[in-house]
């Protein structure tokens, strides 16, 4: 544990949240990004649910890979193990949150089941392994990726709420204008590339 290690963690944080933004440069989790971004409120709810699930999933998957799959040379089972763990985790979290904290469930509950097949969760878990991250690095990377997801979905929702009252050409209404907005956001985020 030296300063180098923390600098390294900081680099992982910034690159995962901005430079390699899960949505705008890795294309993971496009579905909720386009689907649930019409209201800021729902975008915030989805964003926090994703932060919670991805961070937890990163911890679990990293532990499973390091202490079970890797020592037993079963690395090739990672996809199947991770997706089952994530699906079970989401169900479990939903039940626990419902029991323990009804207000939190009201805020996040409806978004949790939507996350099981969100490719960002599995994608981040797989990237942690591919990049050879240890436990702490996996947690940081998971949290930062989810943070990047939340930032982009909230930004998108803010823009879309404003666009509702704009006069948009009929051809571009709906999906096309949303995608054009995403294009411009992706270009802006592309500028972060020189950061590190």
């Amino acid at each position: 544990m030296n300063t180098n290690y923390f600098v390294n963690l900081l680099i992982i944080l910034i690159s995962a949240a901005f430079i390699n933004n899960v949505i705008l440069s890795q294309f993971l989790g496009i579905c909720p990004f386009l689907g649930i971004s019409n209201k800021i409120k729902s975008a915030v709810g989805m964003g926090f649910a994703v932060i919670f699930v991805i961070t937890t999933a990163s911890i679990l998957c990293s532990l499973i890979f390091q202490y079970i799959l890797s020592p037993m040379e079963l690395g090739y089972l990672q996809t199947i193990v991770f997706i089952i763990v994530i699906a079970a985790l989401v169900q479990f979290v939903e039940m626990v949150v419902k029991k323990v904290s009804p207000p939190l469930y009201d805020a996040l509950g409806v978004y949790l089941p939507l996350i099981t097949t969100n490719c960002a969760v599995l994608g981040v878990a797989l990237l942690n392994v591919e990049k050879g991250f240890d436990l702490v690095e996996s947690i940081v990377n998971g949290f930062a990726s989810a943070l990047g997801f939340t930032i982009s979905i909230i930004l998108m929702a803010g823009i879309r709420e404003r666009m509702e009252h704009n006069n948009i050409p009929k051809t571009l209404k709906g999906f096309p204008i949303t995608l054009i907005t995403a294009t411009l956001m992706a270009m802006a985020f592309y500028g972060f590339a020189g950061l590190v």
Partner: protein
Amino acid sequence: MSNKNKKPSILRDALSLTLITIICSFALAFVYEITKDPIKAQEDAKKNEGYQVVFSDAAELVTDEELVALAAETDLSSLNADYSGVTIDDVVQALDGNGNKIGYIVKSNVRGYSSTISVATGYSLEGVVQGIELLSINDTPGFGMELTNPEFKDRFSGVKTNHFNVTKGNAANENDIDVYSGSTVSTTAVVKAVNAGIGFLTENAEGLGGVENE
């Protein structure tokens, strides 16, 4: 979800789920056994291809088991604090057509900007870098990837040195490497891996600095 089925039975559901999982696991294990060797062969082929590039004069490459074992237990940061974080997992002797040793290839790994970078460095007995090759670099496509550009790798070839310096656009000496814009961390990481590889060789390899120093 509809529960029109006769009676939901936890036991039956669990059994059926377990059964399909076991069957799938067997299928996977079977395919894994079949593909294990081809995958290994592909990886070796790729590695050797990379090795051949960094030491084009070599006619034959022989793994130096002693140095590989030594590298595994050496803490590189004890050689030079700059080398901390670098690991060496392969050392190969380069032989010429007559079987005489003409140099070494060392494979060093270092954490790049977002992933591990493996670099193979060819180093002749005279202390000249024959070439470097990035064996795996998973950094963001388009950024760290610029480093796979031949222009960058050629900067190292033919330089007689035991240490490279990272410079920012003002490379003056042969052993100065300019940073690639947008890939500062990756460039620094590659240079560090190359330096550590050479440092390890000069310290330990026979016929190189190691013997001369004694």
